[in-house]
């Protein structure tokens, strides 16, 4: 028997660490989602730079939608801070050992790249704004006339997407005090979860149908700019299938990474095995097996496989499940991670 009694009673620390509530899982999810969207948009923009416009539909509004989503994520992150008025302190220094410092600076560059990428087709996608700010059209034309610039922007999207998608996992990974997070698999897992969520979000956004061409008004035009494919025709079927195929690959890789994460934890120290049990058989097992592995990965994998085989019609169900699974992954990892702790190995 080992019985510990403590007089410590600090709020959010005792009886169990509870410093991060809904805000951090929301930010981790939206950050990962935006990272995935940036990588997909970057790859599509490379095609534009090569002169192939056929798959451009999701490269056009994706950066704009990603810009809105990253703002929501940053809003959640800001709400989590307890010393909010000092947030600018992050940008007075660069701390190379702190993944959070890296992430803060990456986010600044992400903002710039997303805005520049959105500019490519913004005046066309949102005519109301294009008419009021002719300079946008000039900039857009200038960008499109220089394939090298589009290519550079595409690569910036891809590289920053990878950085944004992976840093949150590395951030948790470095916290030696919480064994559930102590796996280098966490970074790639968050990255591929972000990629599948990104593909799902692009898919969802393109399902929304407005009247063509884009609405002329301010608000209708803005909403359409976020989610409506340009051009008179809906995206070609093979383009949508390509997106689904990519999502299937991302989900399959995510499943392998989840398996590797568990193998990694179970074959490490007692602290790590106890931490893994929290999600495998403990209080978070229902969310882990049901929400992440079942509804978040296996079911959408099966549904999308059937869709590609043309056995069932295309629906938004797999995309919605992937997004819900992506959020559940962050929610479980943040909460179960806080519940995990180093198991004392030494005697008295």
């Amino acid at each position: 028997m080992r019985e510990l009694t403590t007089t410590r009673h600090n709020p959010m620390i005792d009886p169990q660490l509870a410093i991060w509530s809904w805000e951090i899982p929301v930010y981790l999810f939206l950050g990962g989602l935006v990272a995935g969207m940036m990588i997909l948009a970057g790859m599509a923009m490379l095609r534009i730079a090569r002169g192939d416009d056929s798959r451009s539909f999701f490269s056009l509004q994706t950066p704009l939608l990603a810009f809105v989503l990253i703002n929501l994520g940053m809003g959640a992150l800001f709400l989590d801070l307890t010393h909010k008025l000092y947030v600018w302190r992050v940008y007075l220094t660069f701390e190379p050992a702190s993944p959070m410092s890296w992430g803060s600076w990456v986010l600044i560059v992400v903002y710039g790249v997303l805005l520049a990428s959105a500019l490519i087709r913004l005046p066309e996608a949102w005519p109301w704004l294009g008419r009021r700010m002719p300079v946008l059209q000039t900039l857009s034309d200038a960008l499109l006339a220089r394939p090298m610039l589009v290519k550079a922007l595409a690569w910036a999207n891809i590289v920053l997407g990878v950085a944004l998608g992976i840093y949150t996992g590395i951030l948790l990974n470095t916290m030696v005090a919480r064994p559930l997070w102590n796996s280098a698999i966490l970074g790639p897992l968050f990255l591929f979860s972000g990629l599948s969520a990104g593909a799902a979000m692009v898919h969802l956004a393109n399902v929304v149908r407005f009247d063509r061409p884009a609405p002329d008004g301010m608000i209708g035009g803005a909403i359409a700019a976020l989610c409506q494919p340009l051009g008179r025709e809906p995206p070609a079927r093979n383009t949508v299938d390509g997106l689904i195929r990519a999502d299937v690959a991302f989900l399959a890789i995510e499943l392998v990474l989840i398996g590797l994460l568990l193998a990694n934890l179970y074959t490490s120290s007692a602290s790590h095995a106890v931490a893994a049990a929290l999600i495998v058989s403990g209080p978070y097992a229902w969310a882990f097996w049901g929400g992440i592995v079942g509804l978040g990965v296996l079911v959408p994998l099966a549904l999308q496989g059937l869709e590609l085989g043309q056995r069932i019609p295309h629906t938004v169900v797999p995309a919605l499940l992937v997004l819900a699974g992506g959020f559940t992954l962050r929610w479980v990892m943040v909460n179960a991670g806080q519940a995990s702790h180093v198991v004392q190995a030494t005697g008295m």
Partner: protein
Amino acid sequence: MPRFGMVIDTRKCVGCMDCVVACQTENDVPRGYCRDWITTEVRGDFPHITMEIRSERCNHCDNPSCVSCCPTGASHVEDYGKVVLVTANKCIGCKACIAACPYDARFIHPDGYADKCTFCYHRTKDGKDPACVAVCPTHCMHFGDLDDPKSKVSELLRTRKHRTLLPEAGTGPRIFYLT
């Protein structure tokens, strides 16, 4: 430059909590919070039971995980004494340091910044003992320079059996418990 550390004799500590009260008074710790606390650990099965009472706080680690994760440099190691401190007006309240500490020694002060034991730096930089050490009625706590072979703490560590808490976390804690 000294490297401050603490040696606590678990065979003398009776868990009176004088150290806790002294800290709260000295450092104006807000009500409902504590920078140090008493842990009682009982092991074994009756009648073969051992009990240890410990006064615990921030371990001012040699390799502090709370400092390396801080995005603003608010959590830092002071040159003199190698004490781990938080600069309140640099802290954004992201709580990464709290998650990174294997001892759960930090908390968010009601004013929003991360707070914890400072080894009473305002006293110890002038050569005094921390408040908790100064008031201990059983004299079970000792404070001093671990790098000075002639200091009381170094002498105790040379002559007595001791251990640290969670050494497997790899942070190099500098509070040693005599057993």
